[in-house]
């Protein structure tokens, strides 16, 4: 009879999984466990804390309280599906899946369920083409912007001439890591540098071969597309072979505090591209301290506040809330729905004044989303790590990337997807 009881319990539990309708439901597909937990925790904390701040300080958005339901994915696509299906019924407004794999399989699902999805600096790059990917947004910058931003930074520091230079790309051997290759190959043709590809298999605990190769070939610059343990090991190995850290540039997912801290002072000078501000030198952090941390409502232990990935989570939440505000203004009612939010996201305009008004002056690039362009303007800056002070600082402001190369690639990739799936252009 044990089985019967178990079955009854199972049915009861699964039935109650359907969430109750809330005011403004923002699901957070986070991962606080598994191989990428170190990166998932601060992001989820930042996302949650900003929403808590909205509720505590402003009484919600436009008078409607925000309800955030967190669902643990463990960076696993199957759990991601379960989380999506479990949360979408209750009127979820926007998804931020924080995983390239989950993004790819949610693209058709969100499109058919008419719920927008925002992938902040990850996911499918060609989703920038809003004509094809009607419900996916990847503003303010995507991977190809990141790759181009790195090369632009190198051009800038080399008097616009990197002809004949050698550049190595150390990348996570997965969909995520392979993203920049095509862009970098195009840029290599354009600027005449030589590109070496060095894949690292998941999880990336062992990278001796790759770094011995770098030591042998002495590339002028090393770019990195890493995530998880791969970052810490790569920074450590680079330090071990005494590769000049200032010539080592990571993507924004390889530029968090915990990526460089284990290597200690040897990591000094390491750089990473970014599309948002670093540190906690923004007025909003006083409010977070006052309303969220001091009142014991912080999602984490409070020690991640102001770290790079915390800021990114906060940025994601901020962009979601701003889009909700726009939707409320456009529709005239506070309790917006997912399709209304999608329309607002498509017209989102983030200006310097707007960010300053939120207590985040200069936190990210100003950008404007349109129906054709779901990716913003792709402005990318560079941050550098100071191991003595244990802080990141922006050394190159948000600057435009090579839209000529990127737009052509976006067009090619998105049109291939449209052809495979018979998608009509949605913009007039």
């Amino acid at each position: 009879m044990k089985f019967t009881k178990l079955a009854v319990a199972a049915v009861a539990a699964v039935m109650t999984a359907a969430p109750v309708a809330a005011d403004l439901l923002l699901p957070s597909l986070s991962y606080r466990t598994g191989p990428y937990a170190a990166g998932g925790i601060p992001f989820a904390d930042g996302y949650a804390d900003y929403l808590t701040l909205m509720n505590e300080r402003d009484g919600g958005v436009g008078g409607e309280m925000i309800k955030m339901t967190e669902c643990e994915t463990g960076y696993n696509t199957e759990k991601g599906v379960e989380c999506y299906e479990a949360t979408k019924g209750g009127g979820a407004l926007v998804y931020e899946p924080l995983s390239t794999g989950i993004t790819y399989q949610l693209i058709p699902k969100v499109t058919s369920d008419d719920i927008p999805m925002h992938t902040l600096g990850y996911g499918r790059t060609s989703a920038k083409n809003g004509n094809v990917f009607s419900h996916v947004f990847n503003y303010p910058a995507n991977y190809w912007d990141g790759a181009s931003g790195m090369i632009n930074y190198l051009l800038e520091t080399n008097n616009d001439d990197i002809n004949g230079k050698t550049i190595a790309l150390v990348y996570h051997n997965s969909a995520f890591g392979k993203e920049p290759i095509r862009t970098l190959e195009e840029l290599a043709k354009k600027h005449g540098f030589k590109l070496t590809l060095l894949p690292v298999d998941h999880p990336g605990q062992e990278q001796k071969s790759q770094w011995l190769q770098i030591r042998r070939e002495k590339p002028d610059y090393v770019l990195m597309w890493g995530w998880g343990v791969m970052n810490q090991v790569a920074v450590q190995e680079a330090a071990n072979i005494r590769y000049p850290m200032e010539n080592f540039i990571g993507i924004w997912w390889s530029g968090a505090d915990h990526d460089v801290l284990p290597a200690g002072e040897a990591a000094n000078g390491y750089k990473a591209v970014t599309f948002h501000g670093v540190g906690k030198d923004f007025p909003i952090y006083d409010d977070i301290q006052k309303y969220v941390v001091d009142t014991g409502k912080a999602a984490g232990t409070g020690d991640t506040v102001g770290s790079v990935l915390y800021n990114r989570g906060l940025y994601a939440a901020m962009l979601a809330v701003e889009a909700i505000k726009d939707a409320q203004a456009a529709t005239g009612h506070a309790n917006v729905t997912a399709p209304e939010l999608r329309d607002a996201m498509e017209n989102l305009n983030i200006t310097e004044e707007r960010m300053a008004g939120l207590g985040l002056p200069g936190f990210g690039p100003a950008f404007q989303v349109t129906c054709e362009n779901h990716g913003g303007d792709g402005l990318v800056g560079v941050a550098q790590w100071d191991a003595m002070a244990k802080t990141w600082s922006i050394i190159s402001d948000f600057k435009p990337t090579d839209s000529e190369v990127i737009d052509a690639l976006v067009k090619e990739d998105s049109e291939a997807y449209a052809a495979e799936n018979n998608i009509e252009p949605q913009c007039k």
Partner: protein
Amino acid sequence: MSAGFYFGAEVFINGLMTGVLYSLVALGFVLIFKSSGIFNYAQGVMALFAALTLVGLQDGQVPFAHLINSIFGTQVHHFGWHLPALLAILLTAGVMVVLAILVERYILRHLVNQPDIILFMATIGMAYFMEGFGDLMWGSEIKKLDVGIPQGGNFWIEENTAFLGGEDFYGFYLDSLDIVAAVFAGLLVLSLVLFSQYTKTGRALRAVADDHQAALSVGISLRFIWVVVWSIAGFIALVAGIMWGSKSGVQFSLSLIALKALPVLMLGGFTSIPGAIVGGLIIGVGEKMFEFLIGAPFLGGATENWFAYMLALLFLVFRPQGLFGDKIIERV
């Protein structure tokens, strides 16, 4: 000699160094397999658990802080002490012994005489359990592990070998951490050999490995031997956890190093200590050299993972019991 030759030599030596670490993990497997016929899937998670415990003790973390805080609404995180590395290591070794006793008491004792695959499955259950338990106890964020092992390229070797290969070559690169790891692994193996040859417990251990029933009949306590073996395996896991954790910080991925030991086991044989050592070296050198000579230039790199298994597979086709494994005698 050309620089190319010396580069090859450099890769070879680094392969050896990596191989020593693989051997170390493989040793943990072999010990348990030999004495109890269990293929211990949890070995990797044990390394993670040991490293987590070590860092936690060293930094004075409050165990189960998150759980306590969320139940009682408190805000406790740290005791505020900072233990010296050696003391923390000793305490962690103690924890691993306790773990061994618990494993014997609550799992092994109930599964005597079950088929291999059931015992294997039990260790998988254990791996799940410890993974969740370790995270619950110490939190799943990344932690910095520093027990004072030097890191980085060894300059002395680099400078004194730079003259060998001409202009393009600037000395052999060897990671100090790898050298320390190799020395420790060597000492560990040596002491294990001495232990099993010259102490009473060690002899009992070998007797159990040879024949359970015969050992029982001369009055050796199987349970005690199991506790000893699992403690040693726990200690090996601790050493492996320290070596890998120093490089990457302590985090979940540490538990995946067990996968690196499997081809070593295939190659060396599940029951042979020298096999684990030689197998580790062959796999370490083999995968690095293949990546250097063929993988990176012709196949686009990242070949190490599968090559290790392919190499072991090739060996097995010719010697199905592994390099040093017991000869398989089959009777109907």
